[in-house]
């Protein structure tokens, strides 16, 4: 006897929605293994994790702060994946956005805040979009695999940032790779007292709605989906596939760029080498867990943020290393992949 996979009949919608929830529960159950290995008490660990992320007003707002870049990079990945543009370059596009935002923010002079902030955002969005356009053009024009090119460009942008921070963008008189501060006017305002809840979070929420609108209410959203399902059929139906992929890349990269804008203009106020702890890569997991749906992506970004923020207090209370957050993140992506498979296939025993 051996086990094989057999296609199953389409499952009802409510099960589809429950898949990520199930995947999260399985991930948390599996994550008990490393927590136990680290000598943490399971109930105490998870309790301190969730209390640390959601227990007080300040912690909850901190979770929102961390969720903003994850929402942007998650949307970036989801938007691209939906059209089967495999943008693994969110990290590089984020950095491009941060660099452009910092550069604009430093040199902006004395504009009124509304204008300064708009300019910084536009610069970051365009830089991210332009960086994502490279793999899109290479894919459409030269048939080069987008996964590899977008991935490699992450490192190219990282080194460009390194060059800038040790060169033209370095703070005068400093030996650290750190840019001068962004002008006050260009910084995202904090919207709630006694917190870091800033404008970027509202922008992230707006981006969720905009992406949802593009996906489900516009002709372009329909075309992008058609290209994602079957590019050949889409082309046959009169859709300019290359143009759809390029536009998808511009928007996807722009969204990732916005994550960088937020980190530069609302959190650090400088450009630094470690401006992103890998938000671009996390975005891939965020998007998959959110089933590439904008609202799902926002929810899953919030979940990942709970884990990231909560892991800090879990670590303080139980001594489990904070890197448990990264373990949970990676594991949830793998579990989600298997869960998605099981919605399409069932495991069947076949007699030889």
């Amino acid at each position, binding site marked *: 006897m051996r086990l094989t996979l057999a296609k199953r009949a389409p499952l009802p919608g409510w099960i589809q929605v429950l898949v990520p929830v199930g995947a999260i529960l399985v991930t948390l159950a599996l994550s008990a293994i490393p927590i136990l290995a680290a000598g943490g008490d399971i109930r105490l660990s998870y309790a301190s994790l969730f209390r640390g992320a959601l227990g007080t007003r300040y912690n909850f707002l901190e979770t929102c702060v961390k969720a903003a870049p994850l929402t942007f990079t998650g949307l970036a990945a989801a938007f691209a994946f939906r059209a089967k543009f495999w943008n693994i370059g969110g990290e590089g596009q984020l950095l491009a956005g941060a660099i452009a935002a910092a550069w604009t923010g430093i040199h902006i002079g004395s504009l009124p805040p509304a204008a300064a902030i708009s300019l910084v955002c536009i610069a970051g969005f365009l830089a991210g979009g332009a960086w994502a356009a490279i793999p899109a053009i*290479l894919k459409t024009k030269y048939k*080069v695999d987008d996964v590899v090119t977008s991935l490699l460009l992450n490192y190219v942008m990282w080194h460009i940032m390194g060059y800038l921070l040790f060169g033209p963008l370095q703070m005068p008189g400093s030996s650290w790779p750190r840019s001068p501060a962004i002008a006050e006017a260009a910084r995202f305002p904090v919207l709630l007292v006694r917190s870091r809840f800033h404008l970027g979070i509202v922008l992230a929420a707006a981006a969720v709605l905009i992406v949802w609108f593009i996906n489900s209410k516009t002709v372009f959203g329909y075309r992008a989906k058609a290209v994602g399902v079957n590019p050949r059929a889409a082309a046959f139906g009169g859709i300019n596939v290359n143009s759809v992929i390029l536009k998808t890349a511009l928007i996807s990269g722009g969204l990732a760029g916005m994550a960088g804008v937020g980190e530069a203009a609302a959190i650090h106020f400088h450009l630094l080498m470690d401006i992103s702890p890998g938000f671009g890569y*996390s975005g891939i*997991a965020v998007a998959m867990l959110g089933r590439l749906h904008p609202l799902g992506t926002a929810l899953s970004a919030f979940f990942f943020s709970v884990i990231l923020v909560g892991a800090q207090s879990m670590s303080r209370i139980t001594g489990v290393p904070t890197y448990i957050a990264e373990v949970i993140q990676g594991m949830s992506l793998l579990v989600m*992949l298997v869960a998605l498979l099981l919605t399409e296939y069932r495991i069947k025993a076949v007699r030889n």
Partner: protein
Amino acid sequence: MEQVFTLSFLTGLLAAMMRMATPIIFGTLGEILAERSGVLNLGIEGIMLMGAMTGFLTTLSTGSLWLGVAAAALTGVILSLLMALLAVWLGLSQHVSGIGITLFSTGLAMFIYRLAVGSPTNPPTVQPFTRAAIPRLSSIPVVGEAFFTQYSLVYIAFLLIPAVWILLYRTSWGLSIRTVGENPFAADTVGINVNLVRTLCLAAGGALMGIGGAFLTLAHQNMFLIDVVGGRGWISVAMVIFGNWDPVRGAAGALIFGFLDALQLRLQGLGFNVPFHLFLIIPYLMTLIALVTMSRNASAPAGLLKPYRREEKG
């Protein structure tokens, strides 16, 4: 400037090139094995980091460097088997599975390292590999010191290049591997177990990736740092393409990378104000250009990225 045009500078540069290229040669050869059988293993970056970590911790606790190397290889095998389960047996997207493995094992490597050593102010170190001079050859001027006074793992990496080439092109196993990568349906027809071959190639490749990671913590440096791999896995993926899926050409790409990396380090060491970040972009640009120029006669294995399900013959 005259410091640059000396024999000792050249010797040091070539020796450093060999060392910088070594982990990438391990990674590239490992990735070639996997891709030739039809599986893109993007878990490589995380697998190398796990190899670096387990190799280091094993040596730290046992004092044996070779035990560390073995542990790293075993770690690579285990993670690659996980990759095989997802991408081969379950037929999930190779892209996403690989990224997932990298995210997961990156987190796990840092987690286990913290767990094992805590957070001391000075990270623990091991007594790393020492260089072994090959008798006779090492006394040749320049070449002897650069190429034949190296770590054992460097020699192993360079011996593996022809070994993998012979395996792929001159043995019946290699023929099976290439057939599985090019046309799994044909391979199945002649009685080759496609998924088994892919699993074995992933496992063998994973062992090499793990050893490449261990080289970084047991020879190149003597400690584990979180960014010790620092994109060398992705560089290896790039070198596979740059080398057109050929072990010799892939290793040549790794040597170019090693050369540039060594050159920028040495120039910096001499106090030159080189924009070293721009130096390090060159290999990436090289790969991108190679990708574009090759795309017309690309020789990527035709079965790459496609899970094999017999009942879904297209």
